């Protein structure tokens, strides 16, 4: 019976980093095993090193002038485009989130849908946040005086540990839509949807370097992000250990990074209304004065 065809062997993906718009392996040549929630093998992810952090920060800094210089309308369109690309790969993400987080198919699909909708929500904020938090200031003198929000610069993000896609999107989209560039450390145990998400970013007209994604250990990577002198702010949402969070905040004080501390208690409910807090924390207020006269 020689004509039974053997089952086709599937072609697996190599999960790499996302730096400057490219997909390099870790310069360290290392990887770590990613398991599903049952302990089964899912893939090998790149184990990022200090030098990967350096490369990612350099890429983010290089991308900052161009990205922050885009019009808010343009940034909004690009983040909306990210939502479009994610919608197109909805089934793939549902499958990956289900396996990575151990969710039932319906729950995984709901997480992906919520991620898409959250991107759309933040996309719309691009050209509205300045009107909500900016101001014209009625000073007691003949001056025109106004305050506008500006992106703070390069923002490091320790992504949520449990919610590998919805949590990631919920912390990342508000950072970049206002013009910041980001270096994200993906969920340590569940990094695969983040890496697949970078394929979405890479096909959404998002300039290279605006988002850089590392996979690896918080204990190894996060201290380099917290102490890097060219990082302006750090989001510690994904750091669940209080001592680690404190150590990172101490390191961040060296150049007075803006720090978003982990939320108290468990990981935030990512399905809840997000408000504007994640949008405003990495913003600076610039106030400009000019005399009025003839």
């Amino acid at each position: 019976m020689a004509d039974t065809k053997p089952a086709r062997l599937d072609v697996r993906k190599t999960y790499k980093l996302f730096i400057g718009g490219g997909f390099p392996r870790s310069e360290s040549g290392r990887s770590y095993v990613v398991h599903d929630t049952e302990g089964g093998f899912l893939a090998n992810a790149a184990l990022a090193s200090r030098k990967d952090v350096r490369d990612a920060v350099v890429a983010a800094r290089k991308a900052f002038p161009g990205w922050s210089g885009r019009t808010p309308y343009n940034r909004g369109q690009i983040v909306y485009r990210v939502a479009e690309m994610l919608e197109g790969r909805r089934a793939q993400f549902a499958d990956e989130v289900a396996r990575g987080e151990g969710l039932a198919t319906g729950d995984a699909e709901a997480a992906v849908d919520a991620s898409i909708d959250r991107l759309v929500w933040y996309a719309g904020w691009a050209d509205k946040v300045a009107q909500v938090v900016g101001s014209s200031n009625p000073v007691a003198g003949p001056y025109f005086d106004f305050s506008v929000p500006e992106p703070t610069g390069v923002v490091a993000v320790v992504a949520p540990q449990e919610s590998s896609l919805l949590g990631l999107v919920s912390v990342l989209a508000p950072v970049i839509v206002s013009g910041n560039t980001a270096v994200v450390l993906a969920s340590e145990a569940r990094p695969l949807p983040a890496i697949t998400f970078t394929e979405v970013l890479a096909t959404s007209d998002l300039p290279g370097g605006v988002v850089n994604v590392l996979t690896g250990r918080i204990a190894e990577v996060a201290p380099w992000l917290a102490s890097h002198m060219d990082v302006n702010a750090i989001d510690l949402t994904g750091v669940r250990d209080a001592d680690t969070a404190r150590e990172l905040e101490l390191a961040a004080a060296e150049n007075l990074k803006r720090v978003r501390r982990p939320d108290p208690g468990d990981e935030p409910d990512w399905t809840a209304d997000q408000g504007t807090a994640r949008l405003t924390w990495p913003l600076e207020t610039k106030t400009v004065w000019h005399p009025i006269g003839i």
Partner: protein
Amino acid sequence: MAFEYAPAPESRAIVDLKSSYGVFIDGEFVDTADGHTFKSISPATEEVLAEITEAGPADVDRAVAAARRAYDDTWSTMPGAERAKYLYRIARIVQERSRELAVLESLDNGKPIRESRDVDLPLVAAHLFYYAGWADKLEYAGLGPDPRPHGVAAQVIPWNFPMLMLAWKIAPALAAGNTVVLKPAETTSLTALAFAEICRQADLPPGVVNIVTGAGDTGRALVEHPGVDKVAFTGSTEVGKAIARAVAGTAKKVTLELGGKAANIIFDDAPLDQAVEGIINGIFFNQGHVCCAGSRLLVQESVYDDVLTSLKRRMATLRVGDPLDKNTDIGAINSAEQLAKIRTLSDIGEAEGAERWSPPCELPDRGYWFRPTIFTGVSQAHRIAREEIFGPVLSILTFRTPAEAVEKANNTPYGLSAGVWTDKGSRILWTANQLKAGVVWANTFNRFDPTSPFGGYKESGYGREGGKHGLAAYLKGGEN
């Protein structure tokens, strides 16, 4: 043509100084529980003005406990409209006593009476008046229907604008419903203590405002006290970093308003006479003891000679001397320690090859004085171009293109303020957009207003003071 001026001293008879002051806790001036005393002197004469208490940890503890009681029992439950009326009342008393307070400020700090009288005190009253009006309008601040205060605010302020910094801190804190423990700088405690007395005149409930005097140790004890919910600090970047470390891993909210090395950019089409006045105001206002001082002058090469000539001519007319003289432009350096720092950095400027110039002027025999000084031939690598001198010392650099001006202006870890001088509107807006600075003054400099947010990028700190932004810093959910 040189004008001679007869002395025109403001009388200090209006000030009633006590020989010694306790700390102000729970509505009473009390003796220290575990501290010591130190002398506060006039920097213009080195005369001892009063004995001040150096509050110890037990004093700080009592003050925080008093603030907590006042928060729980009185201030956080009082209707906003009533809090507003207390603040309005305080603002009015400040206005009523403004001359006395201006004289006291000039005596203690060394700043010219012209500035304390015409800038500091009017702004103190304006800040109190502005934030008073917010107290019953918090639901309109954009933070939801019922924004809540943090609780007890620890506030540590510097010596350069003692009473103004007190008002910047206390007015929004109280309006939002917080109670405060404030520590003034050790060389300038007197107006804060006078403010404590004003709180009593206003019948402010005990414990809502507490004043603990002292130096760094007192400030550290206050900031690190576990009963504190919110920390607000204005001062050096070095101490700001220490505070950021001290609150790491706690739930305390922080705003920091720190050092600066502001660029003041003069383009070739600027109105040069106005620009020179702006340069003078930018660096010599308040003896240069200003975190947002325009201490790095960037002049476009084509007008460099004109600007320098005009600047020197104008500097020669500056009158340095008795802070209480109404004709004085530049008063005394606040302390011997600060004078030593200014001298050291200026000497380093010379040693590194920059050229130093000051107009000839006589300085009083006693007290702490420093001539208005400019350095030319300064490169970006020079320490006088990188470090905050916090004195009347200007470093002058040049540029050729707008891009080079912006590059040099932003080449600093600080980012508090900047100046732009040009007659071209589009260039103002382009430059303002490029500058990494929290406040940009275009064709003006060193303007302040309670409605206008103030604060820095990068190592100049975080959070803003003034306006709706400054109010939000004292409300939950509004930390940014």
